[in-house]
């Protein structure tokens, strides 16, 4: 039995590796022809490692670690490095393409010279070869014949034009056969790239029905790294991701390029960033701390209530209390937004019927912050309740019994037993919840898009904007649209801020160490 099993596994392994290697070879040839050498190298290295690991006895333990590590690198480490890389570039609106792509586009830009005209045409093709003859007819009735790169004026009686069936259309030019419309379309990929020199101009396909005279407008001079505008005789040199003339005129499109520390310097020096930074930064802290404290307090309170043995209908309560967590936050935040609408929202209508003043939930900084904390409390307490319920189970009952014998009050029991013990196991989760809320873009943005606006602000930063939503505005809703370079720089800085805070938190609470001691 085990013999078959072993052999079967061995066979499965060989089949798996064979298929994998076959795929790898196939991919490698494609990558090679596409000149994607970086991906090619990665592919070869990864395939080699996989083969080694699954064939060598020595690497046996790696079989279990490798897939996880591999995907961690692919899905976690690679994006981080990519973000770091992008933060040093100008990648964003107007700078999407690589420099080579831009040069190619510019060199393929043609203009119609003043004396340009359209030619109607017939195309002919050598059977079984990609060789074409084009018979062109200008508006004055002159005939031209282009074979390969040579074009000459001919007259209608030229012996090379053959019409064997005598129906008036030319069926053959030398041994080139006339292309029907369907065949023409099949050969379009080659035909549309034909460039036939004609005096100083180029004859190129203009549409399915016509050729026209063109001239190339731009030429790249590699030795001087410049673009020459042949039409207007202007030189353009690369400068910060665009080809620019000495007068500062830039050619579109621009290209992406390495900027060094510029995005980071912008964040440090730009007054638009600096102006509201402190206000936004402080509110981000308040928001994250208040979110954690309120959700934890309510969650723990509910958990203790649910944990009470004398409580009946526990299951029903539990289901109801978990509901906010089960609903998608995306929808519930929008519902809250509707409920709190100042003019027509239900909350204000209730206030009105009670003859109370309505509250400008979305228009006042204080009230929209207040509303956000409440909404996040509603969204977040079930999670805290769930983990507290679990943690409460792990507190040994004899501690409470001992406390009861010592005559401790309920509050004393909570303060001296429940809270310290529960914090030990939940502490790390609170810290991660803090980090999460620090960057909780969804709730902030869905509720009020960071608003309300602030009177006299230097840049559109609203009263509830946290760092991440504020920088989203800066990098995606201002300037010229998307600025991925700046956005990446910002996310790295925010990452460092959260990392430092988290590190201090762990250090200060000693959370991780104590877990080890107590469990």
């Amino acid at each position, binding site marked *: 039995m085990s013999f078959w099993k072993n052999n079967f596994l061995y066979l499965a*392994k060989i089949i*798996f590796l064979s*298929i*994998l290697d076959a*795929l*790898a070879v196939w*991919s490698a040839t*494609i*990558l090679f022809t*596409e000149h*994607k050498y970086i*991906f090619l190298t990665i*592919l070869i290295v990864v395939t080699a490692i996989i083969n080694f690991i699954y064939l060598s006895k020595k690497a046996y333990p790696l079989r279990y670690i490798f*897939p996880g590590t591999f995907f961690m690198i692919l899905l976690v480490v690679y994006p981080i490095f990519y973000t770091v890389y992008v933060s040093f570039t100008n990648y964003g*609106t*107007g*700078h*999407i*393409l*690589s420099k080579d*792509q*831009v040069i190619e*586009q510019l060199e393929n830009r043609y203009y119609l010279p003043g004396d340009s005209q359209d030619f109607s045409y017939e195309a002919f093709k050598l059977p079984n070869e990609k060789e074409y003859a084009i018979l062109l007819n200008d508006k004055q009735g002159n005939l031209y014949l282009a074979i390969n790169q040579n074009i000459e004026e001919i007259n209608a009686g030229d012996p090379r034009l053959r019409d064997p069936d005598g129906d008036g259309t030319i069926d053959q030019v030398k041994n080139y056969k006339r292309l029907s*419309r*369907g065949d023409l*379309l*099949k050969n*379009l*990929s080659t035909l*549309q790239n034909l460039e036939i020199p004609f005096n100083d101009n180029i004859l190129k*396909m*203009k*549409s*399915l029905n016509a050729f026209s005279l063109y001239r190339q407008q731009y030429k790249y001079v590699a030795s001087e790294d410049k673009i020459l505008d042949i039409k207007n005789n202007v030189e353009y040199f690369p400068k910060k991701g665009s080809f620019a003339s000495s007068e500062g005129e830039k050619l*579109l*499109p*621009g290209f992406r390029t390495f900027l060094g520390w510029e995005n980071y310097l*912008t964040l440090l020096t730009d007054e*638009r960033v600096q102006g509201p930074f402190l206000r936004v930064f402080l509110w981000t802290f308040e928001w994250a701390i208040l979110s954690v404290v309120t959700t934890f307090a309510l969650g723990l309170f509910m958990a203790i209530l649910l944990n009470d043995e004398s409580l009946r209908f526990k299951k029903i309560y539990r289901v109801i209390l978990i509901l906010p967590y089960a609903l998608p936050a995306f929808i519930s935040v929008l519902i809250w937004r509707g409920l709190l*609408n*100042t*003019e*027509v929202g239900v909350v204000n209508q209730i206030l009105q019927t009670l003859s109370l003043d309505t509250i400008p939930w979305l*228009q006042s900084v204080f009230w929209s912050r207040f509303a956000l904390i409440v909404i996040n409390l509603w969204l977040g307490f079930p999670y805290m309740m769930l983990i507290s319920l679990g943690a409460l189970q792990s507190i040994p009952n004899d501690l409470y019994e001992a406390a009861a014998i010592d005559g401790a009050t309920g509050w004393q029991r909570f303060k001296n037993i429940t809270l310290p013990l529960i914090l030990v196991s939940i502490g790390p989760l609170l810290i991660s919840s803090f980090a999460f809320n620090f960057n909780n873009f969804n709730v902030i943005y869905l509720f009020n898009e960071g*608003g*309300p*606006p602030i*009177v*006299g*602000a*230097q*840049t*559109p930063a609203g009263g509830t904007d946290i760092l991440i939503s504020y920088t989203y*505005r800066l990098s995606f*809703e*201002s*300037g*010229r*649209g*998307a600025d991925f370079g700046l956005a990446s720089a910002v996310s790295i800085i925010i990452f460092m801020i959260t990392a430092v805070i988290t590190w201090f938190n762990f250090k200060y609470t000693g959370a991780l160490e104590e877990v080890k001691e107590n469990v």
Partner: protein
Amino acid sequence: MKKFVVFLLVLTMLFSINALVAASEEGKLLIWADENRIKVLNSVKDQFEAEYGIPVEIQEKAFGDIRDNMAVEAPSGEGPDIIVGAHDWLGALVSNGLIAPIELGDKRDDFYDVAINAFSWGENVYAVPYAIEAVGLIYNKDIVPDPPTSFSAFEAIVRNITDKEEEMYGFIMPQPDPYHTFPFMSGPGGYVFGTNDEGVLNPNDVGLNNEGAVLGLQKLDNLYEDGVVPFVDYQTMTSLFTNGQVGMMLTGPWALPALEEAGIDYGFTQLPKIEGNPPKPFVGVQGFMISAFSKNKILAQAFLNEFIANKETMLDLYETGSRPPVYLPAAEEASDNPDVAGVLKSAADGTPMPSIPEMASVWEAWSDALELVLTQKQDVKPALDNAVEQIEKAIEASQ
């Protein structure tokens, strides 16, 4: 089992690498279109395939995703040949080098000039336009039998109808919403970007705080300040209107199908003149564009010129999209519908929404100013001054 999972994962990874490098194909048209355009394109596709024998593939994307996905996929060779889009994307698409000019040939004269202009950049035209849209005044004929033509008449009607106790409103527009508010500001002379002598937009000349803009917004704000017009968003506006609680609302033709469904007897007309000046709403134009990375540009051009730019397809597009066509033969026929005529009239006074990428700096600052003004936190002039200052700084930083 575990190995099998790993195997599947590796397999998908390898395939995705291949997908990454596979180039868009020659001799096959790939079109990105949104849900509404798909239906029409599918029948066009059949005609094209039958006539030319060339396969056409149509991929559905959310309208807004088309532009964003272009920036990622087109440069890596994964993009489509043809996209459906709006003219205000033009600046970003051209400065990103993602779309190619189109040779319209003789068909150029068959379109409204405003539609061709909206899709022009320099000397080139970048789309076959198919629809136009502009906001106007939509009124409930049961409440407002005769729509006002002057702002003073408009104001009188609004004040007369509004009764907060009864939850009846004379006029509602979505706020804070620069797009919808622009006609009030542009009528008396406000503008977003000025133009230079050649008619090219100048991002360094922002006219949102000039005398006309301030005057227009002030007139509108008087209604908000007196509590006659509620400060609500688009959804609230349309739901109140379909409930029959609103006399007039300001929005575009996209709101009309819902009104028809709700059985409201409505009319679509131009906004009232402000001191004799017709309001100039933003005009939006939709069209078909060709990717700069297409390997079938001539073919794509033939597809658009022959199979899209014809009366039948344009009318189909009008019927599924409920926006007036800009192809003259189709527009003539569609104008029998009073809604279409209304939108076309409104658009005729309008100005194309600026398509330069700098427009990204404008929306937020402008929207914030509107909110501050209309919720009575700041006066019109300082709020608009501040907005323009924000816009100028943001544009300066991007140059």
